[in-house]
């Protein structure tokens, strides 16, 4: 790591994909460093993205660490920096510093079945784990994905999900009924209860809105998942990424450094401050 932690590396946007349009648009960006640099992130780690003149925003890396050519970020247009990112074009330059945070302990999960449960943009932070497990297929057991969004238009990674469903179990849902939708209608936790993933030799990895995570964890508990079989990734407002600026803490933990990944066994011991 360079001595000055606050100066980002420059990276070029090499591809942009519109995942979701409308009032809550999501785009996926692929970036490449201008000069060779091994970012060497772990699944679930984050990067601080810069748009010079607008500021910085902490975004989880959604591509697998197995991919060395580019970093991928799926970003919901939400605040000042993410709005600026949405206005950018291919070949535009951003700044990246990191990686930050602890990442998912995927080494410990070898041989286990993986149940991914995502809601909305919450699929992005766990997507790197899913892609890595697919890339190291013989190291892991069965993969199941339970994913939902407000409407079918809010679903991210549509083509990738289509591809994923060919060899793996994929259960999709939308919050309310809509024409032409043949899969589950209802909230993600309800779909978890409906599809009953088995806790046997399994790890559940979930991310989505805080209220969804809360009820997913409850549903998983009812299915027999133990607290240390459930993992999630938390977000809080961040500025420094290195546990100094003081705003992302949950109790004595800085989410940017000690998190963002927690097992439910760990998270339930912390104050409700996220």
């Amino acid at each position, binding site marked *: 790591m360079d*001595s*000055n*932690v*606050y*100066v*980002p590396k*420059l990276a070029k946007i090499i591809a942009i994909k519109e995942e979701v349009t409308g009032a809550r648009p999501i785009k996926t960006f692929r970036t490449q460093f*201008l000069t060779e640099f091994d970012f060497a992130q772990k699944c679930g780690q984050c990067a601080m993205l*810069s748009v*010079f*003149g*607008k*500021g*910085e925003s902490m975004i989880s890396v959604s591509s697998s660490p197995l991919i060395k050519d580019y970093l991928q970020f799926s970003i919901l247009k*939400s*605040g*000042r920096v*993410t709005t600026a990112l949405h206005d950018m074009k291919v070949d535009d*330059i951003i*700044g990246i510093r990191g990686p930050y945070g602890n990442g998912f302990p995927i080494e410990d999960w070898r041989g286990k079945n993986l149940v991914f449960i995502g809601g909305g943009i919450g699929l992005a932070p766990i997507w790197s784990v899913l892609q890595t497990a697919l890339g190291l297929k013989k190291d892991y057991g069965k993969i199941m994905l339970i994913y939902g969004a407000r409407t079918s238009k809010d679903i991210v990674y549509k083509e990738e999900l289509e591809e994923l469903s060919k060899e793996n179990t994929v259960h999709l849902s939308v919050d309310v009924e809509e024409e032409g939708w043949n899969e589950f209608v209802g909230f993600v936790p309800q779909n978890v209860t409906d599809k009953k993933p088995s806790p046997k030799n399994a790890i559940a990895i979930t991310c989505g809105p*805080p209220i969804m995570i809360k009820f997913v964890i409850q549903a998983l508990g009812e299915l027999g998942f133990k607290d240390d079989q459930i993992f999630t990734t938390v*977000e*809080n*407002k961040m*500025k*420094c990424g*290195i*546990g*100094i*600026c*003081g*705003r*992302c*803490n*949950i*109790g*004595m933990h800085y989410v940017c*450094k000690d998190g963002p990944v927690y097992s439910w066994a760990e998270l339930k011991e912390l*104050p409700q*401050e*996220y």
Partner: protein
Amino acid sequence: MEKILTKKLLPKWLKKLEDYTLYAPQFTDDFWSFEVAENPEKIELNHPNTVQAPKKIIYPQRDVFFEFTNPDGEPPEIKEILPDDNASIIIGVRPCDAKALTLLDKVFNDGYKDEYYWKRRDNTALIGLACSTPPSPNCFCTSVGGSPHAKTGLDILMTDMGDRYHIESVTKTGDKLINTGGKGLFTNPTAKDKKDVQHIHDESEKKITRAIKDVKKIPSVLTGMFESPFWDEEAMSCLRCGICTFLCPTCHCFDISDEVTSISPVKGQRVRTWDTCQFPDFTMHSSGHNPRPDKASRLRQRIMHKYQYFVEKFGEYQCTGCGRCVSKCPVGIDIIEVLNKVRDHG
């Protein structure tokens, strides 16, 4: 190394140290503040606690990280701006404020070394002044492991002995500063001098009237108080002005933002500025969700950070008992009273 310096010779010593930028407490515009001292003759070390701690010299309120120019169609240019290499001396530092810097040291070197902080820290010598009488009516350093004559964090501790200073070097840097003074300035303390200094120090501790009793109990009591309605009551009068954290010698929270000076091409600076956990938008997500949505949760954060989380992490209170937050709170929120009540919750 212990020496005696006649007060009249203080400017002479400081003039010998002209290679350093000298900061001293000065009374300007109705308040005491550490500022660059152009003329050592004018330095009088009889100040109460300065409104702001000397923290502001090591870790200024605004720090430029780098400049950027972002011309259309070309990669942005980034010019790193680090603090200069000038060596500085701060004279008249109170022991509480010196200890505060040792706490900031832990924060700014916790896995990552913050170049901006450390460049200044490593280049700044601290000459402290023991508090023969409490510089503030709200001093409570002795409650949190400090003392009015503590040497923690200092290179030299000076004690006022009337017409002379007792000067004790604590570090090699301190020795160097004394040696730079040359022969003829300092004398060696007599046995009586040493006894007198000891007496001044002992008496100074007795003059501190405010205290948190049984402070050791507090971190563990706090662990059970996260959900307590106590915080609503205590924070009721808070105006969320943030002065408590702005003046705190140990508070370190900051914001990072871009200041734009030109739109086409985009030019500007990335800056760090002090921020406070007492502001609502400090923790507010871009979605509008706020993990600390009210002043009760923000007061709780300030108290728990200083008296629980920091203790869990670094084994020390993140408070040195300077009393500034007590003296300057416009509505009288008093951390000493709050913590005494916390203790009684246990």
